[in-house]
């Protein structure tokens, strides 16, 4: 067991956990955007930064990645943490000035508008946290999309910016995106994933007649698990 101090409270926890895990298990709120518990931590959005110390010197680390250590003192809302987190949110707000999720997070920090000239303020939804790409790789196992380019031009994209032919239409990217940057629509018998330039035929339930999931996704699952050909003929609701 490991003993550590978060915001003045003592905790006993198992080795191998991250600061964020321990904090959240104990009801201590640390904001995150690029973190999801089913996916390996990545440390891109930097919102979860905390100040840690062991002795006199302290430093800023991302709590989603930092493994707990014996005797560690953690501050989740020190002035240094807050001033960095505020600037990070100001930067995100300058990029995503109309995004409700970012606006709400910024507003909680008392930021109404970013401190940059209005001509430079952008209206983007994607914060390049990579959750869509990582979910597609780590959870779905398809890797239909990836992060392309570098620096300010980095973005999640289908291969060669053409239709993502490996995509199975599961929509994991859409569901996991923290800022609603991925646009998906189910239109009658068709699912459209606009970001990846792909469309999928949806399967009709033999009982209720509803279109309930992309045929390609169901085929992928059926083959992966060796299920019978008629396994997905009936939707989960009717089963």
């Amino acid at each position, binding site marked *: 067991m490991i003993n550590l101090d978060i915001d003045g409270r003592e905790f006993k926890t198992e080795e191998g956990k991250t600061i964020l895990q321990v904090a959240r298990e104990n009801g201590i709120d640390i904001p995150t955007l690029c973190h999801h518990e089913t996916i390996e931590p990545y440390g891109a959005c930097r919102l979860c930064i905390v100040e840690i110390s062991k002795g006199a010197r302290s430093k*800023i680390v991302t709590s989603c990645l930092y493994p707990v250590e014996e005797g560690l003192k953690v501050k989740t809302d020190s002035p240094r943490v807050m001033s960095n987190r505020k600037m990070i949110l100001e930067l995100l707000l300058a990029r995503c000035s109309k995004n409700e999720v970012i606006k709400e997070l910024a507003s909680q920090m008392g930021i109404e508008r970013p401190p940059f000239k209005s001509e430079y303020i952008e209206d983007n939804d994607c914060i390049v946290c990579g959750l869509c790409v990582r979910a597609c790789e780590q959870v779905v196992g398809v890797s239909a999309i990836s992060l392309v380019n*570098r620096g*300010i031009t980095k973005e999640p994209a289908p291969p060669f910016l053409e239709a993502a032919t490996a995509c199975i239409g599961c929509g994991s990217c859409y569901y996991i995106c923290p800022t609603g940057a991925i646009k998906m629509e189910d239109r009658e018998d068709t699912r459209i994933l606009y970001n990846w330039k792909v469309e999928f035929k949806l399967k009709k339930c033999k009982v209720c007649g509803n279109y309930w999931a992309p045929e390609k996704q169901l085929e992928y699952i059926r083959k992966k698990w060796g299920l019978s050909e008629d396994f997905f003929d009936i939707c989960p609701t009717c089963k």
Partner: protein
Amino acid sequence: MPNKLGSKQDLETLQKDLINERKSGKPTIAVCNGTACHPYGCAQLIEAFKEALSKQSLGNKAELRITGCHGLCEKGPIVVIQPGDIFYQKVKAEDVPEILHETISKGNIIDRLLHTDPITGSTIVHRHEIPFYCKQERNILGNNVEINPTKIEDYIAIGGYTALAKALLEMTPEQIIEEIKRSGLRGRGGAGFPTGTKWESCRHAPGDTKYVIVNADEGDPGAYANEGLLSGNPHSVLEGLIIGGYAIGASQGYVYVRNEYPLALANITIALNQAQQLGLLGDNILGSGFDFNVLITRGGGAFVCGESTALMASLEGKVGEPRAKYIHTVEKGLWNRPSNLNNVETWSNVPVIINKGADWYRTLGTDGSKGTKIFSLVGKINNTGLVEVPMGITLREIIYDTGGGIQVGKKFKAVQTGGPSGGCLPENLLDLPVDFDELTKAGSMMGSGGMIVMDETTCMVDIAKYFLTFLEEESCGKCVPCREGMKRMRQILNDITEGKGNEADIDLLERLSATLVDSSLCALGNTAPNPVITTIRYFRDEYEAHIKEKRCPAGVCKALIHYYIIEEKCPGCGLCVKACPEKAITFMGKKKPVVLDESKCIKCGACYDVCNLEAIGKD
């Protein structure tokens, strides 16, 4: 190629034979074939020497040695003749017959090829008397002159691979690590982490498979110290790597070299093949029972791949993106195995320490930084080139003694150390002793060993913008502070240089800098604001002049300067009229001053540069 070496005795016998061969008594003509001498025509020069020496009358008179970088790149191509240590500079192919007939045959010195000291104006015959070399301690780089980097025989003749034999056959891994620790060697890649401690951590990290890696991804604009070493003496790097592999317990090494270094890549590849053929790589090296192999990987041209975790990701075939190092790479690095990454120069120091001992090594340098450091001395300085100086030497000594001072008629303004993310230090810090800790305290860093000297014609806001723009383009884009923060900083700096800055900008730049330093994921973002932070700290008045007075004191920022004709000085010669690409200057007749139409002027400065009567003003 000599026979495979199966033991230390084999190596010693070969070395004796090679030394005897060298004692032939023939003079040696060492011609620099370094990267910087190529644009000056060293390839043609070498061909001319080869052709002349192939003729019967001269063939036996001298030995031609095609070497790596000699250091004084400003004056290339360089030729050094031994015995006598005669130094010729800016040598051309047409000088070859005269060098052979006069200097080699008769021992006469050719005055016009000699070096002239930029300060005293006197000519100097011998290399060791040239001020550029006098204050240097060329322990690492010095052997470049003695060897042809594509011949392992040359390296062995000057004592190469004796440190390897000593390490493998007379020392335990623990003793080697102890020696490196005691030497005080710190990582030359920039961060200055104690090398021995890193090796020890990697040796003790659990796991059977471990890796040692050479970081030869020197991506800085203006720095080529690693290039000069890897292309000029690749075996020294390889020898250090094999010793490191043995000490750490790795049987596989990698050299990650940037593909934009064709000469370094070619020479390390040749070196690797030769070492394999001689049995200095492979199974049971020198009969020690130690097996070790090396692979070369070419980098794809991303600056960020010089960062350890990004480099390892790239080696794995993934996108070169850094990851958090809360679990160190010595525990989980390449393919999650314990991995020890060191810079080219660090590896090159290892054979020297093993051969000469930690006690000797510790006599060089300061308390906290031992040994020497190679710098790429560039910018507005007389002697640009690669210099190797003992740690603790002052900036002033490097710039004025070794570098020969600032170019004629100009005044020193700042020196940037450590590459694009280093700090710009002002004149009152010229007496700063150069070591890891002092540079960091002053807001700069050792970094890559880049050293860019700037004079009064450099605008410090413009230079901060230049470096930041470079780093913005090279940011991998993974984390928000680095990706978004640098973009905002560049926009603000751009506005300031265009006269659109406002008084809150300096504070905002400082706030942004603090966040990048504190909360970026890797060292690229952590150090990227250094040029901005230091130029604000040391040259705040220049920022204020741009913001408040809409004036660029150095006369660089185009939006803030204008050119005008000083009528009383202008004789109407018309040179500027011809030089102006926009036809903004009108010829009004002989002995009448020309007229400049400011609405057409694009502020290129062509008229200003061409006028030798100072009849064109700029403010």
